[in-house]
């Protein structure tokens, strides 16, 4: 148990450290000139912090969602939160809205995400509580609707706007700076704390509502609290840097191979490993073809998927 804790803390720290030093050019932290110092502190550091935060949010909300929806295929984007955010951000990008300066697009994305999350909540609400199947199907339905609207908008917009919006949707961490981090930190850590405090209830929920009830939990209340935590984390993550695939869906499964399904361990471990993976992917995406940058989301899946498939073949998972 102790070594596991150690690994879970140690890996993200090492990845974070290397993401500061490595890149298109290696920076020696003990002999920096003015330029290198600036690059390290005001370009790389905020970018890596954002990657960590986004990865943490996605990993943790993936773990929580797979629990409350009792579905191994659930990921933070299945609720339509990301497509709502993407639609609203793309509208902003294509229409060239700038009412809040550099904050315009993140704020639009966050607004779109929160709006969609609440809408899914309203759809999933029946007889005094949230129902997993309703949430899931409501989310999928909204997701289709918003994606279609997004496609509609992109197909009638100029090629310029289209390319910019597509780059944003694919996940762009390059514009991360310190100013967005406090907001991200509040929502991501807030959501994570909330879900970790209710981790025991989540364990019970997975066994079924009746079982949870007999263990002394109120399923509807617990589900609502957990749903809110997922909504906050996912919205914050989308507004920090667009959509990053893979992490929310597969990182919790990868962690289950190592730690089992106890959510008290699974949620923080998925968060830290999600953060580490995104941070590493971002490092690769900006170092592999300098001076060009690739979308981090693409790299995440290219690094992550083979490893996941390897684990799936090697480990005896889910008793399957």
């Amino acid at each position, binding site marked *: 148990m102790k070594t596991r804790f150690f690994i879970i803390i140690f890996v993200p720290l090492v990845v974070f450290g290397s993401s500061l030093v490595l*890149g*298109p*050019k290696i920076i020696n932290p003990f002999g920096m000139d*003015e*330029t290198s110092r*600036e*690059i390290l502190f*005001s*370009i*790389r550091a905020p970018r890596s912090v954002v990657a960590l935060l986004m990865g943490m949010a996605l990993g943790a909300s993936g773990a929580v969602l797979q629990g409350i929806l009792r579905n191994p295929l659930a990921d933070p984007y299945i609720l339509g939160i990301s497509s709502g955010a993407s639609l609203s951000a793309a509208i902003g990008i294509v229409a*060239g*809205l*700038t009412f809040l*300066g*550099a904050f*315009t*697009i993140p704020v639009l994305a966050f607004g779109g995400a929160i709006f969609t999350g609440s809408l899914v909540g309203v759809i999933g609400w029946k007889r005094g509580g949230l129902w997993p199947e309703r949430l899931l199907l409501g989310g999928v339905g909204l997701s289709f609707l918003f994606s279609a609207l997004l496609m509609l908008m992109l*197909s*009638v917009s*100029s*090629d*310029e706007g289209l*390319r*910019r919006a597509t*780059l*944003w949707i694919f996940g*762009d961490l*390059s*514009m991360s*700076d310190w100013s967005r981090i406090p907001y991200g930190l509040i929502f991501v850590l807030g959501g994570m704390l909330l879900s970790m405090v209710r981790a025991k209830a989540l364990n019970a929920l997975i066994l079924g509502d009746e079982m949870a009830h007999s263990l002394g939990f109120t399923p509807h209340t617990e589900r609502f609290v957990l749903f809110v935590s997922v909504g906050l984390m996912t919205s914050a993550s989308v507004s920090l840097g667009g959509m990053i695939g893979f992490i929310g869906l597969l990182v919790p499964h990868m962690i289950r191979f190592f730690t089992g399904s106890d959510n008290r361990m699974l949620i923080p471990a998925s968060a830290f490993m999600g953060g580490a993976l995104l941070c590493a992917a971002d490092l690769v995406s*900006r170092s592999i*073809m*300098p*001076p*060009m*940058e*690739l979308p981090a989301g693409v790299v995440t899946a290219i690094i992550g998927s083979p490893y996941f498939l390897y684990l799936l073949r090697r480990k005896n998972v889910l008793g399957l």
Partner: protein
Amino acid sequence: MKKTLLSLTLIVCCSFSSSAHAGETPQRIISLAPNMTEILFALGLGNRIVGVTSFCDFPDEAKIKPEVGGMSNPSLEAVISLKPDVVVMTIDGNPREFEERLRSLGIKTYVFRARRLWELPHGIRDLGTALGVKEKADLLAGEIENMLAKFRTAGKPAQKKKVLFIIWPEPLIVAGRGSITDDAFALLGEKNISDDSGTSYPKYSIEEIIRRAPDVIFIGRGKGMEEVSEGLLQRLKSVPAVKNGRVFYVSDYLYRLTPRTVKGVEELARYLRGQY
């Protein structure tokens, strides 16, 4: 030079294979790219244009022409129903399959193959020959050639300035190698710091900009562009261009290969040589 010759030969060879025959003057022309619409108007063929794309916004008369869809997804039906004598397309902007489809339906096409700044005069001559307005095209191409030659011969700067053209600040997209802007910088004898990119309009690394420290930064002018750029310029505050107030918002003439492109080069030259 070798490269220029090669591309010229290529253009000449290819233009013989276009299916519009030299000499005939088509009465109904459809343009499938904004720069083609602009060139056609400049050649005095505006009144023969019967269809344009939804992006064709210059000159103003182009905006009232019937639209046949976007550049990458024009509507085949709309094109056919306008009964064109020839459909003018570009090699980069329009899908090749669309051209093949049109030809298989017996509709004549003309593919404009010039992509780089120095290919423009020849491209215009070739187009003019194909559309039966050879003299006008010669005149226009000659004007452009003269202007370009003027830039080439007008005293090169004693020391090459390091320059950068930002197309869009967030996500950061710049004019890289092979873009018209890159050609313009080369013509003016300046060093485009992003000329080692793999594509014409790459998503670029901010830390590389800081490291390469451009002396002058240009940003494509546009609605709200100054607000959107604020964040980026804040992060580039240690770069000489930003520190010395040499960040300029310029028009989008250099985004399309048209007779107006020369004005775009002129604009850059004005800022670079300090006569603004």
